[in-house]
């Protein structure tokens, strides 16, 4: 390979050589290179393969719109597919590999598709692969899928860190080229909080590629000088390597900062990428302009790139894109490149200008072909020559690089992400930024300006206006002179007539002019349909490079202005954003915040197995030595509770302190049952409905003093119920004098249940707990021995004599330990939510398995809790609708298998004996099921059509999903102590 690095020039650090590999081969680059510039410097033209035809492809741009030079960077779990080599900052040890080729980049079997291309026209797959029907999944689709995609995703977990942050500023400047720099400086000097963000690793934007002198200095030096001043301003934040990818409502911008993408081994103290949400009062889009490729036969040959890219490689990286460079242009841009190449001593084969005349200066010794065009190119994996056509006269010119310039399109993407469409300008032959209001304006070439001097002034002017608008004193910026400024003005040339071979508009997706023609002939004429049918603009560059050409060509085919065609919809993201940056730290075990019960440590010490329950980890069961299955542990825990006593952590229940003279009335309205007359010192079970008459949640509420209640919710609905009550208090009945706040975290709450519960608890509690002194449903503050105040409630979910004791969270573990010690001789055990579930099923108590958002109070046998005599409560008025009171509704029943050892599982459905399974015959379903060690049988709660009329009926528990059918008897849903004798002992 011939080195393409020039002896001098560029902003690369020639004293710092970096070693990297591409497809296993080792190369040298320089600090300051991108991977693309380093590959070019090494003479590597072929860097990728296209999507459909697997055509050999080279680097086309020097920026983020690159469609071809996509490589996989990194190895192992750090592999990153589809990385644009043109923006990948080179570092020592970088390892890159080409994609979408087999067996190798130089020899790719898939290239046979190119020969088949007549059959693979746009949308061909919609017209075939339909016969026979079964072949799509079996034959055709696997073939298509094998060809799909570009890079390969590694499925290992990412070893690196990511962060997210917020930033706030008066003015966000997007882009650090001439307009952006001047804007930041003007607003910064005026005292505004400025953020200057740029996707590049070196700030300065196009100034870094410029050969003009600005303010008497080389452009890059001028940029350096301005940046140095900006760095001294405390109110200015410079954010290199930061791509603003999205503009969202309320002037919030999404940006991603590559913090450590330029090191081989990232330090774990920093993220590799950081997602920024930038809340800006004002913003300036100074994102520059994108050069359009020209569309002619073979315009995708490796060695063909945009003139601006060629100029960047030359001026910024000191790399000539070839030894003999031809230039094909329709405007001043090609001339600027010709002058710079000539000045650097690179041979310019010919400068072919599609225009018949222009005032642009041609450097000495460069052959100018006016009114000419390139109609095709030669070479397979690298450009060997071009066919230039002037007035029908064809000439074969040997060259190893071709720079093309089809004019410039302002980069207006961000401004169009919120619905506004860019506006076609006949004068500029480009789509310009829409007016999106005064808070966000474009400046410089993003605003359609062309000359450097104009861009510098525009940036300063616009920032001055915005800063003044925010109340900052106006600052008149001096605008530096530009020596060697040129006019990149151009004449439209959408497509070179007479082109031979494929002329591409979308390089990556292999969309050609012929494909566009086909889409129009077939009536996919709206630009969105054209896009969707041809896939033009749907590649990883999202049409940055090709879309305007597509629009121009389609406009030409239809004989209308591009304005009439319009653009497709711009949507985030400006450039692709890693999932890692978007996820930040929320991944793996940290994907959601964890809530820990104050009794977590106690449960862990007692051997608990924890289970995820919403944000919580709840103690599920407490296996003891010798217990082989969870069932053994649960059965023992249940038996112990029924025979003696058990202690269970119920701290996760929601607890709300309710105060005020209006509290009673408030509770009376949010619960379906009566609450006005709840005595002080008493708890009551309450049922809460939604306004549609369906049960929402249940729990107990206790009156601690005249105007102070504590309400409990289920664990699952704690958050929702709190919001529901706040809504009722604030939006429905603001005149009620009631105030409340959550106290869920204040209390460690434990349920002590079982016939021995009182004896054990009395050993810890000072107050008299006899049934007379503390009867069922008592609720009040008691003193523990030693003086600690606690709340004690005599309520039961298990159906046994039970208490719930609440102590300040920090004491929870100590108190639980004391109770366990106090109950040691009674054989007390810790029990978890699994045993709790068995206990409540045996007792016929409902949970959200039954209250699944479709059940009424009556459905679950709680019809008596609908206090319809109350004038109003939430859910009262729609609860009487026909559908909610129909006789064939599902009602809660119990089920007992006819054969005791037959297992019933929740989720099974119910069928009449000998009935054919069908939705019409479906009788209901099993909502909860368990093995009952008390009854020595599986039991279940089920929702059955007209269930309460069907006690005694045999019914089939149909579980085809788990291939089980069990005959069961329908029974009342309370399996133990139906008369509640145990509660009142």
């Amino acid at each position: 390979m011939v080195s393409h690095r020039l002896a001098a020039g560029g902003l690369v650090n020639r004293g710092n050589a970096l070693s990297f590999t591409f497809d296993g081969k080792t190369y040298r680059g320089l600090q300051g290179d991108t991977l693309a510039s380093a590959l070019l410097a090494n003479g590597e033209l072929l860097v990728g393969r296209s999507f459909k035809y697997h055509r050999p492809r080279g680097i086309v741009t020097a920026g983020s719109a690159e469609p071809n030079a996509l490589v996989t960077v990194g190895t192992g779990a750090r592999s990153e597919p589809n990385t644009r080599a043109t923006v990948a900052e080179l570092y020592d040890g970088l390892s890159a590999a080409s994609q979408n080729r087999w067996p190798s980049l130089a020899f790719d079997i898939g290239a046979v598709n190119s020969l088949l291309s007549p059959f693979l026209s746009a949308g061909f797959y919609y017209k075939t692969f339909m016969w026979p029907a079964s072949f799509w999944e079996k034959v055709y689709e696997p073939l298509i899928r094998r060809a799909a995609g570009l890079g390969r995703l590694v499925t290992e977990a990412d070893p690196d860190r990511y962060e997210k942050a917020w930033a706030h500023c008066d003015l966000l400047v997007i882009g650090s080229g001439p307009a952006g720099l001047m804007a930041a400086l003007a607003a910064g000097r005026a005292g505004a909080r400025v953020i200057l963000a740029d996707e590049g690793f070196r700030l300065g934007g196009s100034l870094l590629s410029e050969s003009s002198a600005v303010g008497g200095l080389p452009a890059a030096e001028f940029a350096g000088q301005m940046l140095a001043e900006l760095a001294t301003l405390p109110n200015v934040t410079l954010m290199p390597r930061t791509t603003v990818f999205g503009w969202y409502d309320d002037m919030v911008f999404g940006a991603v900062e590559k913090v450590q993408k330029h090191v081989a081994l990232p330090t774990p103290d920093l993220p590799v990428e950081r997602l920024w949400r930038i809340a800006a009062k004002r913003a300036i889009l100074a994102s520059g302009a994108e050069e359009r490729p020209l569309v002619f036969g073979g315009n995708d040959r490796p060695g063909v790139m945009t003139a601006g890219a060629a100029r960047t490689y030359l001026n910024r990286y000191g790399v000539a894109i070839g030894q003999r460079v031809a230039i094909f242009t329709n405007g001043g841009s090609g001339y600027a490149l010709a002058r710079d190449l000539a000045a650097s001593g690179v041979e310019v084969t010919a400068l072919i200008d599609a225009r018949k005349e222009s005032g642009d200066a041609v450097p000495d010794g460069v052959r100018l072909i006016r009114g000419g065009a390139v109609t095709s190119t030669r070479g397979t994996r690298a450009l060997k020559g071009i066919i230039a056509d002037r007035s029908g006269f064809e000439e074969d010119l040997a060259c190893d690089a071709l720079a093309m310039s089809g004019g410039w399109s302002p980069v207006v993407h961000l401004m169009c992400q919120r619905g506004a469409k860019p506006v076609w300008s006949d004068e500029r032959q480009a789509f310009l930024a829409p007016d999106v209001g005064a808070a966000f304006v474009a400046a410089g070439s993003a605003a359609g300006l062309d000359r450097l001097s104009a861009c510098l002034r525009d940036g300063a002017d616009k920032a001055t206006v915005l800063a003044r608008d925010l109340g900052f004193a106006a600052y008149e910026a001096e605008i530096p002179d530009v020596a060697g400024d040129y006019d990149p003005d151009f004449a439209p040339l959408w497509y070179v007539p007479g082109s031979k071979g494929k002329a591409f508009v979308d390089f990556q997706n292999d969309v050609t002019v012929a494909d566009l023609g086909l889409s129009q002939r077939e009536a996919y004429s709206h630009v969105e349909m054209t896009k969707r049918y041809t896939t033009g603009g749907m590649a990883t560059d999202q049409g940055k490079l090709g879309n305007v050409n597509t629009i121009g060509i389609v406009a030409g085919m239809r004989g209308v202005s591009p304005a009439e065609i319009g653009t497709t919809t711009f949507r985030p993201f400006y450039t692709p954003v890693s999932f890692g940056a978007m996820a930040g730290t929320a991944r793996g075990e940290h994907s959601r915040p964890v809530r820990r019960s104050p009794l977590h440590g106690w449960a862990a010490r007692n051997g608990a197995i924890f289970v995820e329950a919403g944000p919580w980890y709840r103690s599920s069961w407490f296996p003891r030595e010798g217990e082989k299955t969870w069932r053994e542990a649960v059965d023992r825990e249940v038996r112990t509770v029924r025979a003696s006593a058990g202690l269970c952590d119920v701290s996760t229940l929601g607890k709300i302190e309710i105060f005020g003279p209006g509290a009673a009335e408030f509770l009376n309205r949010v619960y379906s049952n009566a609450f006005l007359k709840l005595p002080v010192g008493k708890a009551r079970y309450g049922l809460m409905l939604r306004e549609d008459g369906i049960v929402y949640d249940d729990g107990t509420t206790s009156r601690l003093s005249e105007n102070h209640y504590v309400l409990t919710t289920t664990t699952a609905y704690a958050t929702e119920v709190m919001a529901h009550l706040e809504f009722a208090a604030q939006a429905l009945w603001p005149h009620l004098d009631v105030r409340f706040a959550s106290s869920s975290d204040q209390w460690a709450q434990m349920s002590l249940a079982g016939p021995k519960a009182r004896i054990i608890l009395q050993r810890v509690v000072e107050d008299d707990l006899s049934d007379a002194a503390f009867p069922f449903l008592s609720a009040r503050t008691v003193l523990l021995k030693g003086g600690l105040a606690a709340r004690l409630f005599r309520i039961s979910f298990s159906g046994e004599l039970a208490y719930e004791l609440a102590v300040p969270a920090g004491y929870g573990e100590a108190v639980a330990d004391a109770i366990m010690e106090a109950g040691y001789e009674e054989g007390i055990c810790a029990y978890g939510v699994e045993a709790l579930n068995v206990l409540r099923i045996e007792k016929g108590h409902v949970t959200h398995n039954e209250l699944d958002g479709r059940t009424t109070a009556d459905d679950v046998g709680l019809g008596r809790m609908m206090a319809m005599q109350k004038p109003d409560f939430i859910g009262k008025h729609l609860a009487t609708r026909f559908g909610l009171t129909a006789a064939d509704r599902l009602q809660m029943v119990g089920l007992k298998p006819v054969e005791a050892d037959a297992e019933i599982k929740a989720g099974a459905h119910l069928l009449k004996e000998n009935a054919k399974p069908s939705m019409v015959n479906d009788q209901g379903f099993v909502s909860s099921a368990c093995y009952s060690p008390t009854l020595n049988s599986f039991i279940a709660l089920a929702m059955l059509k007209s269930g309460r009329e069907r006690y005694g009926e045999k019914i089939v528990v149909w579980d085809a999903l788990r291939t089980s059918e069990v005959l069961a008897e329908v029974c009342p849903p309370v399996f133990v102590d139906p008369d509640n004798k145990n509660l009142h002992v």
Partner: protein
Amino acid sequence: MALVLCIAYAKVRRLFQDTRMRYSAFEIIKQAFSGNRHWKPAWREPQPKPHYDVIIVGGGGHGLSTAYYLAKEFGISNVAVLEKGYLGSGNVGRNTTIIRSNYLLEGNEPFYEFSMRLWEGLEQDFNYNAMVSQRGIVNLFHSDGQRDAYARRGNAMKMHGVDAELLDRDGVRKMMPYLNFDHARFPILGGLYQKRAGTARHDAVAWGYARGADSRGVDLIQQCEVTGIRRDETGRVLGVETSKGFIGCSKLALATAGHTSVTGKMAGLDLPIETHVLQAFVSEGLKPVIHNVITYGAGHFYISQSDKGGLVFGADIDYYSSYAQRGNLATVEHTIEEGVSLIPGLSRARVLRAWGGVMDMSMDGSPIIDRTPIDNLYLNCGWCYGGFKATPASGFCFAHLIAKDEPHYTARLLRLDRFQRGFVVDEGGKGPQPNLH
């Protein structure tokens, strides 16, 4: 005169059917040898006639499929589809392409299974490859309670004769080893698997129906925005005011999900609907890695990989009312957090594009296919997240309703008055708050 018109019409209609170009491998080869210059337009671009038997408002998936089935199954082809944008510019062009029939309730399961059956024969039926790919869907569960709920759903499916399997953790791992099994906040316990579910190429569905309807004589009129509904003194619909003038009709059918409240209001309808935006996303193209459709049970996240290699995924709606087809960053982040939590390897992939679809969120999360209090006005709306998979059955059942004035059996419970009568079809049990469905 009328007779002459009828004969002329019949001739024209036959002409369309006769000259309809059949798509096939043979045709592709034949066309290739003439430089692909002789492909015919997929559909006409007609001017509206003064009057149609049926006008369908909305040229999205549901409107087009309704037109197709009206013409093909019910013999009504004097039909116009009025589309304010381009064909398929509704949510059919803006979704995550999932098709499935794994529902719980009697109001839904038979309907979506009917849709699934239609999907299975769709491409041969309308001679267009919509890439219906029955690659299977796995709904992951992460707790015992969730397993029970999925078991209940799977058994409901089987009750209706639909395929369903309950996978355990090992079964899931075998099928999708790249999921987060070892460091998950919410461990994967198993999944409900429907093999026959999958994806379809969304745009092609619209195009296939459009081409099929057009070839049967339906006028597909694009860039034609309905601005009003003209009714006589009895309230009957006479026709619609449009950006292309007044167009009369005997029956008017609305298939404008996302904007149903707006079009409904033109006829004075008040509906149980709120409009919300749902974002969806696609990654850069990657070599095939995800072979089926996955839903994450510990959050709301779903993902599949397209035949082009892009990972197509989505999650929750943005929760606020919106008619803007764009969403907010917080939802993007949330969605991708869910994704990386479920599939750690996604971290180094890149998301390419986000888009937003506006949806009718109904008050129980289920759609409405019904007559309205106005005699000759028909309603198809309330599709929430689920409209794409319903496209065939929605069109078929709506066509049935329009043609016969009685509901198709599978859509009989999707009635407008179900809220008033208390027969909601609340698959999620979330109650009357539309953004929770």
